[in-house]
């Protein structure tokens, strides 16, 4: 097993493997998302307090989970890249960032659309929404720093260091914002009270979360393949690979 890991940590070996994996994860994501949407929109009963508006959580909660998990995974890849000096982990961290930023945006968007009928406001400076907004800023900072550096090695290492610092700061930011929020509790709306979870709701949300994972893996692999070819275009194997695929 250990031998395999090392083998696939080199871009030339990983590239075809990623290509073989993409269709499986994409198909799994599509099937699971369809099942999840069916459970969430049709099977799950209407909530007696919030009506049908609560069905937004089938997207909101998995997106919010993904936004945090992806940052964490990105930081782990960045750490591996910094410590062991492997190229592939830098590419992987970079490939995850846009998808993470997108899920953060979706979590904010659906949070606003859920908040309007539930709390009567599009935006509330609730601890979770505020930290999610700051997380979006962290993603944007990472992507901008990577894009601003021309040298690929420096870009990967500098933005990797930033991702690690961000990951250390995320819990600190979350608890500061939470403290700030409890201190300034002007309008006391209980924002965190989710409707009592029926089993079907939880099932639907879990299926959607797994679908989001599969989607993320498929998209990240697609992006990492582009990233590898663009960055290594001057190496022999990448040029050969490109020529073979372009034909």
């Amino acid at each position, binding site marked *: 097993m250990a031998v395999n890991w090392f083998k696939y940590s080199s871009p030339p070996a990983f590239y075809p493997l990623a290509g073989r994996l993409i269709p499986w994860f994409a198909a799994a994501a599509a099937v699971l998302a369809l099942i999840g949407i069916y459970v969430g929109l049709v099977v799950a009963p209407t909530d007696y307090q919030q009506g*049908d508006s609560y069905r*937004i959580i089938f*997207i909101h909660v998995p997106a919010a989970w993904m936004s945090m998990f992806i940052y964490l995974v990105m930081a782990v890849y960045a750490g591996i890249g910094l410590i062991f000096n492997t190229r592939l982990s830098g590419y992987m961290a970079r490939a995850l960032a846009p998808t993470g930023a997108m899920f953060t*945006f979706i979590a904010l968007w659906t949070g606003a659309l859920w908040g309007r009928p539930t709390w009567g406001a599009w935006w509330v400076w609730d601890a979770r929404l505020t930290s999610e907004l700051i997380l979006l800023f962290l993603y944007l900072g990472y992507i901008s720093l990577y894009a601003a550096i021309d040298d690929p090695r420096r870009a990967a290492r500098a933005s990797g260091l930033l991702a690690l610092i961000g990951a250390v700061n995320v819990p600190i930011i979350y608890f500061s914002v939470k403290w700030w929020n409890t201190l300034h509790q002007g309008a006391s709306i209980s924002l965190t009270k989710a409707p009592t979870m029926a089993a079907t709701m939880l099932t639907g949300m879990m299926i959607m979360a797994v679908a989001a994972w599969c989607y993320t893996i498929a998209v990240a692999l*697609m992006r990492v393949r*582009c990233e590898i070819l663009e960055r290594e275009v001057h190496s022999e194997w990448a040029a050969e690979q*490109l020529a073979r*695929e*372009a034909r």
Partner: protein
Amino acid sequence: MAEFFAMGGYAFYVWGSFGVTVLALVVEVLLLRRRRRTLLRRASRMSRKVSMGVGA
């Protein structure tokens, strides 16, 4: 069916969430496919030049 799409009066919020999410995912995949196609097209142009002896 109409009742399902009305979402108990919350149609705008529910479909607004699902719609934008689907849109974001589709756009991301399309952008990635375009990025890959551009990459391959540039490569094929390059290899043709090389075989014609221009780029070498």
